[in-house]
């Protein structure tokens, strides 16, 4: 059995390494081939659950391939997303962008299949490192700065995570990546949870997400929106299911994200905030931890990757064509980009949980699980957020981009056009799966990890509940739309502390610390330097007259004695010299024997 295991991440890595060698007409088929091979490999592995790729390294047993129902569903969607994302970015000539994206996907697959914390950490850092390049490749100063913030925040998270692993290993001697004891959490449980939850963008560790995703390359953000947060959700579901604190954090996160999304003026930042909000549902699901909640979390992560990537692709098409990303510089684009509008609407209505679309069958599972667990407050607040989601993604986003007054400059308007065939194909695939999940339930529900629970979203009560909320939210939007129009602004968030904190540190260094350094330098020149010169003059005199005098005197003395001795002993007569030498040797010999 072991021989048949070939790690899907390895296909992506080898594919990425060979990519620069594949040029010309072979490039595009190759870009298609590698993710498809990875996907086929994932499908093959899903037919053979078990543990593979166990390697002995020093004292540890490392597991690279744990195939069970939880890892299967996440690997499936990640591999599918790799195909969609690569098709969307097929027009990109720069091979480094593809290499970074594929290493990023490989990191995600590695985390999903790993069986211990050491391998997890390896692939975790590979993800963080590779994804940073997807931001940097945008190559403007803002992206450079955002990339540095991103990698610093993730390095911080990685260190916390590693600390948790090390403390756990010290306490239990165990490295295996399994469910932690969340009923009586130790310090290391908290540290591991915090490290994982930073990647899921759980407040207060969330600000990196909208910041970085809005400044990445257009194709890069399509990858980014899928992998980091959902891989983190997988790890949380694997290790922290039922951790109560996650329920509260998840609900806070869902509300927080949607409020900021309403205030936002940047297209991709709005979508980033909405990821925060939607991942909030999944974090709540993990916190509840029942079989239905975990199923809901997996289903929602699966559906979320598809509709969110569709939204990022459609919004990316607008930015790609116009070069603008602010609502205050766009609008009325339906005349120029009707196809993008349709895809944006499918994505927006999916996230809004419209019947027959993917969000309807996944999101409600988490809400039902919270009601079933008698967490009424969580259930009601999450339902409130789903109204807000429709408001933001289903109404505000298409309204401001495609219908509202045309605020495009003439050049922007001229440039606006539907994207190339490959971008449209990627959107068709994502939109197809959004519909498939919503219409044909066994496709998604058949992959869920807990098979013992059944859930039926298409009950008349659930339909009436959803339709009422959607209809009245639309009415509310129509009445209150003046209040959520786009404004030329940015919203302050918790990243203020490290962005302004960093500036504060710089100020401290350049002002008070620099002043102290200058003053110290002056004082040193005045006081220290002259003292030093005087002291060194003295030592120089002492060296010249004292030490050198003694040394020279000794040398002269030795030379004089030597001269005398040679006058007496070395007269040039060989007999005398032999006599003295033999006598001297005899004296030493006698002295040696007798003493």
């Amino acid at each position, binding site marked *: 059995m072991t021989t048949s295991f070939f790690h899907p991440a390895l296909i992506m890595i080898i594919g990425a390494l060979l990519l620069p060698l594949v040029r010309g007409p072979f490039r595009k088929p190759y870009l298609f081939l590698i993710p498809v091979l990875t996907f086929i490999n994932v499908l093959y592995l899903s037919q053979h659950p078990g543990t593979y790729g166990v390697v002995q390294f020093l004292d540890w047993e490392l597991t690279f391939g744990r195939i069970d129902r939880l890892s299967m569903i996440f690997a499936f969607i990640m591999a599918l997303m790799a195909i969609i994302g690569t098709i969307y970015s097929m027009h990109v000539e720069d091979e480094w962008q593809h290499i970074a994206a594929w290493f990023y996907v490989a990191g995600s697959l590695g985390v999903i299949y790993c069986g211990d914390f050491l391998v997890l950490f390896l692939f975790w850092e590979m993800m963080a490192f590779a994804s940073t390049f997807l931001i940097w490749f945008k190559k403007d100063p803002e992206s450079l700065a955002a990339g540095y913030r991103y990698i610093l925040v993730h390095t911080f998270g990685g260190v916390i995570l590693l600390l948790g692993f090390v403390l756990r290993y010290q306490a239990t001697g165990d490295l295996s990546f399994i469910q932690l004891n969340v009923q009586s959490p130790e310090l290391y449980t908290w540290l591991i949870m915090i490290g994982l939850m930073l990647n899921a963008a759980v407040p207060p560790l969330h600000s990196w997400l909208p910041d970085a995703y809005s400044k990445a390359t257009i194709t890069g953000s399509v990858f980014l929106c899928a992998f980091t947060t959902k891989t983190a959700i997988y790890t949380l579901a694997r290790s922290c299911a039922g951790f109560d604190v996650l329920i509260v954090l998840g609900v806070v996160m869902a509300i927080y994200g949607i409020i900021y999304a309403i205030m936002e003026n940047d297209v991709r930042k709005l979508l980033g905030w909405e990821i925060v909000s939607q991942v909030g549902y999944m974090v709540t699901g993990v916190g509840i931890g029942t079989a239905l909640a975990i199923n809901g979390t997996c289903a929602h992560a699966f559906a979320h990757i598809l509709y969110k990537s569709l939204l990022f692709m459609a919004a990316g098409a607008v930015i790609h064509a116009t070069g603008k990303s602010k609502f205050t510089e766009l609008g009325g684009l*339906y005349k120029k980009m009707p196809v993008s509008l349709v895809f944006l609407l499918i994505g927006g209505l999916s996230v809004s949980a419209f019947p027959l679309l993917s969000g309807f069958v996944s999101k409600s599972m988490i809400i039902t699980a919270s009601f079933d667990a008698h967490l009424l407050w969580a259930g009601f607040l999450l339902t409130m957020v789903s109204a807000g989601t429709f408001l933001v993604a289903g109404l505000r986003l298409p309204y401001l981009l495609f219908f509202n007054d045309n605020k495009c400059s003439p050049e922007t308007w001229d440039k606006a056009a539907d994207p190339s065939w490959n971008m449209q194909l990627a959107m068709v695939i994502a939109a197809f799966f959004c519909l498939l999940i919503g219409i044909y339930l066994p496709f998604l529900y058949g992959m869920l990890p807990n098979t013992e629970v059944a859930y039926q979203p298409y009950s008349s*009560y659930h339909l*009436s509940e959803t339709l*009422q*909320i959607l209809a*009245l939210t639309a009415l509310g*939007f129509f009445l209150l739309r003046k209040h959520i129009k786009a404004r030329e602004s940015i919203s302050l968030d918790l990243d203020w502390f490290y962005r302004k904190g960093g500036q504060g540190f710089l100020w401290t260094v350049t002002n008070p610390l620099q002043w102290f350094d200058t003053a110290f330098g002056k004082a040193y020149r005045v006081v220290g330097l002259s003292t030093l010169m005087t002291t060194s003059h003295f030592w120089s005199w002492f060296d010249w007259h004292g030490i050198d005098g003694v040394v020279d005197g000794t040398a002269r003395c030795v030379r004089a004695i030597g001269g005398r001795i040679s006058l007496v002993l070395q007269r040039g007569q060989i007999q005398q010299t032999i006599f003295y030498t033999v006598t001297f040797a005899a004296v030493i010999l006698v002295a040696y024997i007798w003493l």
Partner: protein
Amino acid sequence: MIVNLIDYLRDRLTTVKYCCYGGIAIIVIWSLTVDTSHAHTWAEKMIPGFWSLFGLGSCAVVIMLARVLGKSGIMTREDYYDN
């Protein structure tokens, strides 16, 4: 085709508006007839059109919360972080 359809609807905005009002009314009235025995809480069983009220209320709460927060200084000028 899509553009023509949208333009067609935009030219008849008032009619579209009334159609939407009609649609909302149909949904709300239909919801009154739906079996509520599977509802999560007593409030949904006792209050007719509970989720309609909840939807409208949620929408208003979320919008107003964002507006109040935005005005309180969260929303700021775009070059705030520039030096």
